[in-house]
């Protein structure tokens, strides 16, 4: 399949890319790894007049932790994220998440930034980034701003980025004592989007849950915080039945779209199971560490 014709532009800086977006208007589209955009263009669901390829912007990829923040360059490939010495062992929730995105070959091209800015509620990073209380650095001609992950996803394929604004970096708070996280996904087969999935982050104070974020993938127009589930476990000892209660609470009011992956009931049920299991894994990680991983 051939996409519709377009002009190819390969800027060497983010600033130049922003200029190109401003010059060419709404027909211009950023290309990162292409794993979402290229298939859309082949199916002619997207027909940009100009492609602005970020693949030649130096330093757009990279991972480092400093001053209590993990900084991930938006063009970092998924495969490089899970191989990163800064991530493995310290951010197992990111390894959970990356390992279930598409397939290993796609992960060699796909970027973390691309996965986020596509604004697809079925993508896996949004829930994890929201659960980790990450924030995103957005750059436009007038400068950069920080957008919390929770305020970034506005609707189906819609984010807080302006028309000539670029996501340049993802910032994740470093693990604190007693914290743990996990991502659990149900998929029909490798490479498919989630039937249901959940990201969970907890901070324990002694035996009890002092703080928690629970976020669902593919259960609505954006990744959704399961606030009722968070309320259930707040201040409690996260025993088996408590986690089950949290899973049940996550199902309340949930209206996932029925499709080939499952009926509304199946998806709602599995969302609850994903919450329960992600919480159990997150609590396990929180308990058996000295606060050096999440």
């Amino acid at each position, binding site marked *: 399949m*051939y996409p519709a014709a377009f002009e190819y532009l390969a800027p060497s800086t983010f600033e130049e890319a922003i200029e190109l977006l401003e010059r060419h208007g709404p027909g211009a589209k950023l290309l990162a790894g292409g794993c979402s955009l290229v*298939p859309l263009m082949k199916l002619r669901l997207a027909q940009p007049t100009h492609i602005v*390829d970020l693949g030649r912007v130096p330093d757009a990829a990279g991972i480092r932790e400093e001053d209590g923040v993990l900084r991930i360059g938006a063009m970092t490939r998924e495969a490089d994220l899970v191989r990163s010495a800064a991530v493995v062992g310290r951010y197992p929730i990111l390894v959970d998440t990356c390992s279930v995105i598409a397939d290993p070959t796609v992960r060699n091209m796909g970027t973390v930034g691309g996965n986020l800015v596509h604004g697809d509620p079925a993508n896996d990073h949004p829930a994890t980034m929201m659960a980790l209380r990450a924030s995103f650095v957005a750059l436009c001609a007038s400068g950069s701003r920080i957008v919390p992950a929770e305020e970034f996803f506005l609707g189906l394929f819609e984010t807080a980025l302006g028309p000539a604004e670029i996501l340049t970096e993802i910032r994740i708070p470093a693990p604190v004592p007693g914290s743990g996280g996990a991502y659990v996904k149900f998929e029909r087969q490798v490479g498919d989007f989630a039937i249901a999935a959940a990201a969970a982050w907890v901070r324990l104070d002694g035996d009890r849950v002092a703080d928690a974020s629970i976020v669902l993938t593919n259960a609505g127009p954006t990744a959704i915080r399961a606030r009722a589930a968070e309320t259930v476990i707040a201040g409690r000892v996260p025993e088996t039945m408590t986690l089950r209660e949290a899973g049940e609470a996550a199902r309340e009011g949930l209206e996932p779209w029925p499709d080939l992956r499952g009926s509304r009931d199946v998806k709602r049920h599995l969302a609850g199971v994903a919450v329960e299991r992600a919480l159990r894994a997150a609590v396990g990680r929180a308990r058996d560490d000295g606060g050096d991983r999440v």
Partner: protein
Amino acid sequence: MSEVAIRVTVNGEDRTATVEPRFLLVHFLREVLELTGTHIGCDTTSCGACTVVLDGHAVKSCTMFAVQADGHEITTIEGLAREGRLHPLQEAFHVEHGLQCGFCTPGMIMAALPFAEEHADPSDDEIRRAISGNLCRCTGYVNIVSAVRRAARTLHGLDVDPPLADAGSGTGHGPGA
């Protein structure tokens, strides 16, 4: 729309061309360079038949534009055999009968190449994960997994079982032979 000049190292050779930006990498390989060993299967990033190695990593060439490969290094199935000798992966797919119709084979081998180079003695589970972006509709994968394991061990100088064909009646065509 303006065409773009690209220079790509393919199987060790510098290749230059002027391409339409919408030209996919797989089109460039098959139609411009006439390297038709790289197949187009699903054309939707699912099947992996078009897998090639880009700068040491397996990628699906139906899901990137040729212009994105400008300045990069590509290996296709045609780049594996040296001086008439099959690459250990090709040899292993032959010995283990890791194919039936053969359509998925070039992509399967290219997906397995960086993995086999990195893993001396992979488990079945690791192999299955590594090739999970590639579909085979004939074999049921068992012999493909055996082939990748044999190739990985061979590449790292570990012992491998002698080919079945040599141990049996000489035909290697299964129980009836």
